[in-house]
Structure formats: C-alpha cells, structure tokens
C-alpha cells in the first residue's frame, strides 16, 4: 500500500462521506426503510405451510427435472414493493410475485425452495428460452407479441395503470387531461404505450426506477406520473405529497412466463393456479401483500386463459 500523509487521508475520507451524503439525499424520496408495506413477516411461510403439493409429476417433464434439482429458479425482481422486494434485514423476498413463486415451488417440489434470478424486461424472454430460469414471476404483462416467444400461464393477477400527481394538482383527473402535459413513466413499463394511446399529445419522460420517477414528479420534471396501481398505492401511502387521481384506466393481466412450447408445464401451472384460487389461498396471498395497502376484500382473480396471448 502506498503511504499517504494522515491529513490527506482524513480529507479524502471526509470528501467521500460528503459525496455519499449527496447521493443519499438525491434519492431519499421513495425508499423510506421503515414501514415497507407488504413485509408481512413470517406470514409467507404460513402460506407455504398450507399450500398444496402435486399428487404426481408426469415422467420426463420439466417439473420432474425441477423436483430432482430441489429448487425452482424464478426470474423476478428484488426491488418491487408489494410484489417482489428483498427485505434488507431478513434477506427474504416478499410480495405477491414472490409468494406465488414459493407456492409453485411447494407444489412441484414439496418445499418452498426458490432461487430468484434478477431478470429485467429486456432479458426475460432470453432467460426463459435458454433455460436459465424455469418460470418468470415479474409483473409480466401478457401481450400477443410476447406470447410468440414465451408461453404464459395465467393470468394470475390483473392490475392497471393509475395517474399520480403532486398533492396540489387539480387539472388532471383522467387520462384525457394528460394531453399536452409532460408525463413521467418508468422505463420499460407498459405505461409508455398506454399513455401514447390514452393521450396522444402527451410528452413522455422515463426514468429507470420508481423512486427516481417519484423524485422527478416532486421536482416538477413532469405534471403526472403513470404507474401500476399496486406500486403507486404503496408510494402514495408512504409519501403524503403524492396523490392518486381516479381509478385504473387500463387492465393489465400478469402472466407466469414459461418456456415457449412447453404445453405440458403450462397446463400443469394453470391447474395449480385453479386449485389455489378455489381453496382461497390466492386471496390470502393478495391480503398478505397488496391487501396491506388496499382497503377491502380481495378482488375476484382473473379467469385463467382470459387474456389475449394466454390461451
């Protein structure tokens, strides 16, 4: 190691500390660490305990290979509140998508053993095609274009896009009001085509993550922020300066991504989904995640195979 005078070293440490503080201040908007909604503690394990296990697996099937491996490899996120977010204290991934992944693992293997591979919307199709992941649980909206490359079981959940604004905004109540306005959206989210369709005159600005979008909205880089309801509900609950305007204006069916052409596994996953919907386990998973910020009873799950692309 090169020896440096103590004074210089101290100055360097101070400079680094000051810079990291600037960095922290820059993104203090969306990620307050206390009260992360959906961190239901041990509840996820209770869910898995009562979850069904498949009576038998067809010989030579993908499911049998997964069982032999002893682990279900899931393509998912680690930073999506309420859906699939890693709890920094326990390292456990919590949320709707994460719980469904564990339940599917339990159904196939008998134990909720899941390994989450952090996938992105650019890589999901390729990860499924080359067998890196077995399934994708990642707010994977079913579209006919995507269905040409992956098989979709489900939909297992239906969400929709809502508009959020600053608290004092009064001119934006419906998608049509976005015309001529600057609208913030997450990069690589279905919000971009949806805004183009609902308000063709709107200027769209995108940022990589939800906290960045919220920060940009608060700093006035746009008049409104369009994002999935589940994500925005969590944000608005944490941050009183953000307000949600109106009800969802799109219907966004989430599917379970599987390898294209694996009809056997798709059938198998759909059967499992039917079972957990009928037994009431689906509603419990909803209560455990999104139900912590949305009032009332669990909604009716979407009909399996109802979305174009999931037939």
């Amino acid at each position, binding site marked *: 190691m090169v020896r440096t005078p103590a004074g210089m070293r101290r100055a360097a440490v101070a*400079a680094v500390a000051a*810079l990291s503080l600037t960095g922290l*201040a820059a993104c203090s908007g969306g990620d307050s660490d206390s009260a992360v909604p959906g961190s239901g503690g041990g509840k996820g394990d209770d869910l898995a305990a009562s979850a069904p296990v498949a009576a038998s697996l067809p010989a030579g099937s993908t499911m049998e290979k997964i069982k032999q491996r002893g682990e279900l490899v899931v393509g998912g996120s680690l930073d999506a509140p309420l859906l699939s977010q890693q709890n920094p204290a326990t390292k456990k991934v919590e949320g709707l998508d994460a719980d469904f992944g564990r339940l599917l693992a339990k159904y196939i293997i008998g134990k909720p053993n899941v390994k989450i591979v952090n996938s992105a919307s650019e890589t999901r199709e390729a990860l499924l095609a080359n067998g890196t992941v077995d399934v994708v649980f990642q707010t994977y909206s079913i579209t006919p274009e995507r269905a040409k490359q992956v098989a979709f079981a489900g939909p297992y959940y239906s969400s929709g896009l809502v508009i959020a604004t600053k608290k004092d905004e009064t001119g934006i109540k419906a998608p049509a009001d976005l015309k001529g306005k600057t609208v913030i959206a997450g990069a690589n989210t279905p919000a971009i085509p949806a805004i183009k369709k609902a308000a063709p005159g709107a200027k769209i600005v995108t940022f990589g993550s939800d906290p*960045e979008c919220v*920060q940009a909205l608060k700093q006035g*880089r746009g008049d409104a922020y369009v994002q999935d309801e589940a994500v925005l509900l969590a944000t608005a609950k944490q941050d009183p300066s953000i307000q949600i305007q109106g009800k969802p204006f799109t219907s966004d069916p989430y599917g379970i991504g599987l390898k294209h052409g694996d009809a056997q596994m798709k059938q198998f996953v759909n059967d499992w989904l039917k079972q957990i919907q009928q037994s009431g386990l689906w509603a419990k998973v909803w209560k455990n995640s999104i139900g912590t910020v949305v009032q009332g009873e669990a909604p009716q799950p979407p009909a399996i195979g109802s979305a174009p692309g999931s037939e």
Partner: protein
Amino acid sequence: MNVITDHLGEFGDGLLLTVELTLLALAGALATGTAVAAMRVSPVRVLRAAGMAYVEVLQNIPLLVWLVIAVFGLPEIGVIAGLFTTSAVVIALYQGAYTAEAIRSGINAVPAGQGEAARALGLTFVQSLRLVVLPQALRTVVQPLGNIAIMTLMNTALAAAVGVVELTAAANRVNLAEAQPIWIFVTAGLAYMALSAVFGLVTGGLERKLAILR
C-alpha cells in the same frame, strides 16, 4: 426484420439525439480539457492544485452517479435544467477530465527546450502555451483524443437512465412494444459501431495529416 423497419422513425430520432449529445459533449470536453490541462502545467501552484482536484474528483466517481446527482440532486438546491442540457453538461465535464489528462501527456511529450525557448523570446506563459507548446502537444495526442471521442459516444447511452431518449432508450422503448430484444439491440449496437467507425476514420485521417516528423 419488420421489427426494425416498422420503427425506423424511433431509431432515427434516437440516433440523432445520440449524435447531438456526443458532439455537444465532445466540444465541451475539449474546451474543459484544454483549460484544465493548462492549469495543471501552469506556474501558479493554486491553479495546479485546482486542476488536479478537478481531474481526481471527476474521474473517481462513475458517470452514472454524476448524472443521477445532477438530475435529482441539483433541483434540491434550486438548480433545475432540462434533462438533455443537464446530461450534455455532465458528460462534457466528465469527459473533460479524461481529455485534460490526454492533453497533459501531449504537453509533457513536447521537449522542455521548446517552452524554455518560447519564454526566452519574451512570450508570456499563455502565449508560449498557445503558440508553441499546445500546437505540438495536440498533434501527438490525436489518437488518445479519438479514443476519448469514442468513449464519449458510448457514455451517452447512460443518459438513457435519466430520461433522455437517445439511441439506447429508443431501442428499449421499441423492445417494450415488440419483445424482440436480440434484433433490436443488435441494430442499436450496429448503429453505435457505425458511429464509432466514423470517429476512428476521422482520427486516423487527422493523425496522418498532422503527424510531426521528428
């Protein structure tokens, strides 16, 4: 291949923005780099220290962090500019640090006798730098400057993370609608390659034209 031809407009807009961002950033980087390199070889101690501090601070923090700090941090202290403007300035300042180092190495390659002779003729420090040292220095660092130009081009892709719809962001948006990542990103990659090939050719031509025979 329909994926590409159906979205030529989006790719074109993205490419145009990438080129604009690169050229603006390069012009800024060259100006900043020359000024900082001059500071680093100046006879004034404070200026030398300031030049060194500039290079160290800019180079030792990743560009993405600088972009995020500028886009989300500066508005907190009341400085808010457009996303494109902010990105162009940040990339120019960042690349300026690398440019300064390249130019300084060029200055060091000029024999000390040249500077001494210039001073002996009665030129001031700025005059000797401008008329004698820099013209020789810049000629020797055409190739490293060309590399920095290519690096600047590649680094403009990071502006996609702060909402500038340049080529990478445009490719992302097309992919969102089409879900054909391989074709779409290969196309974007080829466009970047073509642009950097242009930089390479220009650099090579300049180097041959400006070569000093010693």
